[in-house]
């Protein structure tokens, strides 16, 4: 508690400086302002997210770190439009999610967001190809195009030979790759990953995160990854945001990437 109280002044300036660096060019992909998500459990109120303010620039790879119960997944759900804030606002690409109707939120999730989960969350009764094309069904894409794009996406993650397999017939790494293919199928601007390596061995985890980085760098997707493995975050994320008890503890550029980021900015 005390650390959260102390760290708040530290965290805020950090995000502030990031925004100040290039105010015009760095259009924020995500901007959360005094974001709160409280749950009521009987008499008690659980403050899962408690006044978090943060900003993620377009094309950035950000890691949300913290122990379990720190509120990192709750923030991710709020950004994903799966949940609504109790107070405050989340603005993604200019849209305040708090003001969107349920229908509009669904459309936002469909078009703008790709999600990857710790437990893969593929539908067990469907083949990989069917799982990957499912978002396109909701988008009303016709069958021929759907099949083509699903094949393309699965080829991209190296699963072209496993298209007609069911998730249970595949390894964890393969399932997560399929989940990645599904997340990318509607070409979203935002990839949200909730502990994507949590159920994988370190080698497979690295393989998955290499892919995520590839999408981040090649497709210019903004990535927000929730993880509790600091080492992984430091290896892949440009920025590390630490959370504890629903509050932002620190928000710092990853030193390993700082140099690269600055040189990029200078070139522009």
């Amino acid at each position, binding site marked *: 508690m005390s650390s959260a109280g102390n760290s708040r002044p530290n965290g805020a300036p950090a995000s502030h400086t990031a925004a100040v660096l290039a105010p015009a060019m760095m259009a924020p992909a995500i901007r959360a302002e005094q974001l709160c998500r409280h749950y009521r459990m009987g008499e008690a109120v659980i403050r899962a997210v408690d006044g978090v303010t943060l900003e993620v620039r377009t094309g950035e790879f950000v890691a949300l770190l913290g122990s379990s119960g720190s509120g990192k997944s709750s923030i991710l759900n709020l950004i994903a439009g*799966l949940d609504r804030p109790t107070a405050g606002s989340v603005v993604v690409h200019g849209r305040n999610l708090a003001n969107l109707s349920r229908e509009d939120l669904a459309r936002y999730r469909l078009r703008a967001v790709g999600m990857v989960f710790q437990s893969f969350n593929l539908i067990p009764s469907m083949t990989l190809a069917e799982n990957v094309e499912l978002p396109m069904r909701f988008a009303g894409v016709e069958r021929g195009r759907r099949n083509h794009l699903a094949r393309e996406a699965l080829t991209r993650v190296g699963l072209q030979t496993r298209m007609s397999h069911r998730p249970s017939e595949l390894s964890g790494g393969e399932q997560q790759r399929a989940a990645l293919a599904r997340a990318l199928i509607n070409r979203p601007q935002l990839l949200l990953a909730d502990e994507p390596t949590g159920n994988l061995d370190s080698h497979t985890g690295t393989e998955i995160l290499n892919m995520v980085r590839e999408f981040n760098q090649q497709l210019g997707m903004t990535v927000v990854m929730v993880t509790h493995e600091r080492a992984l975050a430091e290896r892949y994320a440009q920025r590390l945001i630490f959370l504890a008890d629903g509050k932002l503890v620190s928000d710092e550029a990853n030193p390993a990437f700082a140099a690269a980021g600055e040189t990029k900015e200078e070139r522009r």
Partner: protein
Amino acid sequence: MKLPDLAELAVRNLRESVLRNSLTTIGISVGVASLVAMLSLGIGLQQLASRRLMKSGLFDTVVVTSRRDLRNFNRDQERSGPPPGESRVLDEATRQAIEHLPNVLEAYPDIRFITELRYEDKPHLTMVAALPTSAQSNDAFEALQGRFFSSDTAPEVVLQKTFAEELLGRAPQAGLDETKVAELAAPLLGKELMMRYAQRQSAPAESSSAGKASAAEDPGLASAAYSVVSRELKLKIVGVADLDPESMRGPARARVFLPLKLAESLHVMQPSDLREVSRAPGDQPVYSSVSVRVKKPGDVQTVEDSIKKMGFNTFSILDASRSIQQFFKVLDVFLGIFGSLALAVAFIGIVNTLVMAILERRREIGIMKAIGASDGDVKRLFFAEAGAMGILGGIVGVALGWAIGQVINLGTNMYLKRQSFPPEHFWSVPWWLVGFAILFSFLVSLAAGLYPAGRAARLDPVQALRYE
């Protein structure tokens, strides 16, 4: 989501938990089957009744009598129209006028008389009636042995089976079946009967001085005079009919039938001849009653009305048929309600299955929402699943109901056969019932899906995904 995608996903989901969904679908089928069974029994019974009654000629016949026939008078008719004494005579001209009314198929005089017939020199007294050619289609002649009259004027007769028994000197038997009628007919067909009857002849004008005198004052009187002569006619037996003597219709009381035109040409003395002697309009035959057959039962009322306007009494069984139809409507409603009860049980089954499916597929629903399914998509998916079970259950149910009907039909007919009754079809599944049952099952299933679909749509994806 597009409709084909929706249907495909729904069917896929149904196949995933085959056992539970099959059991639910069977539940729907049983419901639909009982509904179909009940309704088709109602419809079948109604059709059977109306088919029987229609063939009996009860529902498409109007019997016309003159108001002058005071024996047929009833109080209602007495109040309306001209007094009997001034009303019209039911003669040939009137018959033709009636026949030309719209929706009238034919109008024929009821000629009947009691007379003596000699067979092998033995006299037999019985009622003889004339039949128009159209009577062939009457169900009384369904089991006719031999044939119907070769022409409307042929000197031929059809016997009723009890008269045939009398001719052969056999004891009357109840419930004769076709083979026994055939046995009766065999020795009689082609044989001759001698009919002795009283013929009415127009009297020569100078027959009496009194007639002469009055004829001078009133020319109508002259033609009203007639004499009665005894005549004989040889008739060939061409058929023996299994006609039910207790049938509600008039001709049934007669046991010997003649072709109508032949009967007319005989000018047999009729009871009405005596009545009309004071007022007979010349040479035209006068009838005591005329039977009018209309095109369909629905026309009875209008035809009856127009005949009443002409100044005659009419009688039809229409009112009786109305209350019979009403009875069947009520029966249908009750049978429908009992049938629907089973469907109500199926309704609860669908709700249960889908609610269970939601619990089981919580995570799946959460995933679908996370990757962009809207509330509407989820709702429609559950609706589609309910609807698919409904349609499938409906189709199977109709087939099952039909099969039940066939079995019952078969069983009852076996029983009827043992009781020496002809087989009957009292089970009818018309096409509209098939369509209605499937549609009804579909709608009931959608209604059953309403609550589960709404619940699935409202499911919080965060909560749903948290479940492991």
